[in-house]
């Protein structure tokens, strides 16, 4: 279940050059608008014919410009959830869902209508027309429609971009279930940090038609050199933790990372569940002594890894906390007045309040314990 792509394509003054191999789970294509994310997924779907290069999905070549090979979209079996849904306005929800299934040979059908309807909570929508659905409902139907064509890979191009925050929060759990309960690899285009951190297994950062970085979410999003691309305001470390316990007296939960613990507002999850945290650099304080008389609940012993040079007001310093990197955004004045130097032992201070729905999410389920047993095609 892999997508291997190595292409070059020119669109007017814009040049896209990319080489990617994606694995299981969700691969997020992350970057500003105009960085080439949508062009890339359109090439994978077959909606754009690249000037040069190869595309191989599951070992089957779909594009090879050297061999003049181009498999048209309808023979690729690659699902696509578009930003604007693109439901067929003349068909009911049920017939929209069944559309792709009609073109899938019976032996290739891996999803049943009942399963998909249950997965996406579409029970009450089946007889409705697309025009009468809310934005969130439309996107759920669009996801179901793509799934029922039993695709080898699912492409999702900013499926939440047209929705307001409340609707996004309504869809995200469904995408997480898709990631954890189906073995289908997903390529997910987004320019929203919270979305990427919450969903992705791997992140591909794109910038001006090129790939700026590839790697696991926690590694890529924590890199300070990528902050201009990963959005300064939201930038910070991504950590994988486990739910260690609850503190019902204060409605808090305790998360365990190797070598340290964090207290966060209570989470609805089972003990032992994987939890992914994003700690924005702007939410981290640095103290040279253990603070006394401070309300913050999380004080972590740390060592300064690096302090970048610069002459602006702000410095993003990297801290080593029990072997993992945490970033802190300080003013240059604060760095000077505390006399911070690389190698120095300090304390990283994080308020529990910064952990909310936008920074804490359920981590990807471990593949080894995946009980779905879907047939690998």
């Amino acid at each position, binding site marked *: 279940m892999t997508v291997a792509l190595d292409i070059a394509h020119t669109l007017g003054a814009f040049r896209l050059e990319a080489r990617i191999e994606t694995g299981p789970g969700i691969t997020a294509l992350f970057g500003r608008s105009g960085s080439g994310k949508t062009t890339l997924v359109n090439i994978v779907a*077959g909606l754009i014919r690249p000037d040069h290069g190869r595309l191989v999905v599951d070992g089957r070549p779909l594009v090879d410009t050297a061999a003049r090979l181009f498999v048209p979209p*309808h023979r690729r079996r690659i*699902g*696509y959830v*578009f930003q604007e849904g693109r439901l067929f306005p*003349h068909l009911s929800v049920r017939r929209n869902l069944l559309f792709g299934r009609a073109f899938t040979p019976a032996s290739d059908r891996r999803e049943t209508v009942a399963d998909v309807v249950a997965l996406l909570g579409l029970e009450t929508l089946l007889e409705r027309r697309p025009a009468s659905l809310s934005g969130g409902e439309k996107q759920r139907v669009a996801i179901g429609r793509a799934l029922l064509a039993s695709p080898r890979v699912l492409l999702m191009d900013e499926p939440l971009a047209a929705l307001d925050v409340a609707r996004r929060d309504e869809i995200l759990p469904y995408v997480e279930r898709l990631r954890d309960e189906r073995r289908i690899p997903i390529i997910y285009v987004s320019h929203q940090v919270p979305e990427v951190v919450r969903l992705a297994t791997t992140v591909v950062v794109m910038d001006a038609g090129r790939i700026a970085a590839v790697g696991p979410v926690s590694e890529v999003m924590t890199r300070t050199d990528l902050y201009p691309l990963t959005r300064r305001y939201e930038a910070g470390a991504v950590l994988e933790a486990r739910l260690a316990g609850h503190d019902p007296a204060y409605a808090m939960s305790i998360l365990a990372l190797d070598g340290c613990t964090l207290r966060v507002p209570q989470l609805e999850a089972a003990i032992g569940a994987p939890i992914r945290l994003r700690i924005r650099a702007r939410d981290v304080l640095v103290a040279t002594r253990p603070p006394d008389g401070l309300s913050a609940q999380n004080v972590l012993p740390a060592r300064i890894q690096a302090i970048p040079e610069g002459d602006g007001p702000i410095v993003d310093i990297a801290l080593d906390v029990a072997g993992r990197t945490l970033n802190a955004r300080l003013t240059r004045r604060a760095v000077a007045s505390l006399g911070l130097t690389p190698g120095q032992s300090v304390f990283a201070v994080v308020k529990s309040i910064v952990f909310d729905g936008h920074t804490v999410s359920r981590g990807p389920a471990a593949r080894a314990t995946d009980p779905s047993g879907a047939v690998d095609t």
Partner: protein
Amino acid sequence: MRLSVRVALWATLASLPVGIAVAFVLARTRFPGKTLVDGLVHLPLVLPPVVTGYLLLVLFGRQGPIGAFLADELGVVFAFRWTGAAFASAVMGFPLLVRAIRLSIEAIDRRLEAAAATLGARPAAVFLTVTLPLMLPGILAGTILAFARSLGEFGATITFVSNIPGETQTLPTAIYAFTQVPDGDAAAMRLTIVAIILSLAALLAAEWTARRIGRRVAG
């Protein structure tokens, strides 16, 4: 009168598939000489109907180059037959048919067709399951316009196939004939009332189907 309806029905039905094909080509493809084809299709709309009828007579009459070929090789004769009246009506209504359908094709969101392709639909299936249903309002509007035009067609018909009672005499030509004879006023008025009822019924039926289809397509 029954002849009139038959002529108009056949004219509309026979030109529909051609009209859809021509509209599709004009809306979706680019080729050298497209402007010329577009102009040719619209010509009957701007030409005096008598000119169109005369051209048809010259081309499709028994002695005309195309008419002689059709008569000798296929045994098809248009001139001075009711089929000729239908043919003349079809030619006259064709621009209206093509225009309406073409507009509806151009209004279709082509991204829906791309979406259908990613779901596994081959191009022919995309056309049948997505494009054609979304064209329906335009097809219907074009059909009504063409049908109405056929019912009322006078100039081209009378020039091409004359005004033979029982063979090529349609409602307008019959009314015209009655107005030319003394004491024909009562008969002309009767036919006029028939024409009004016929047109009104067609309009109401069209309105009703349009609303149904419109509801379906708009969801």
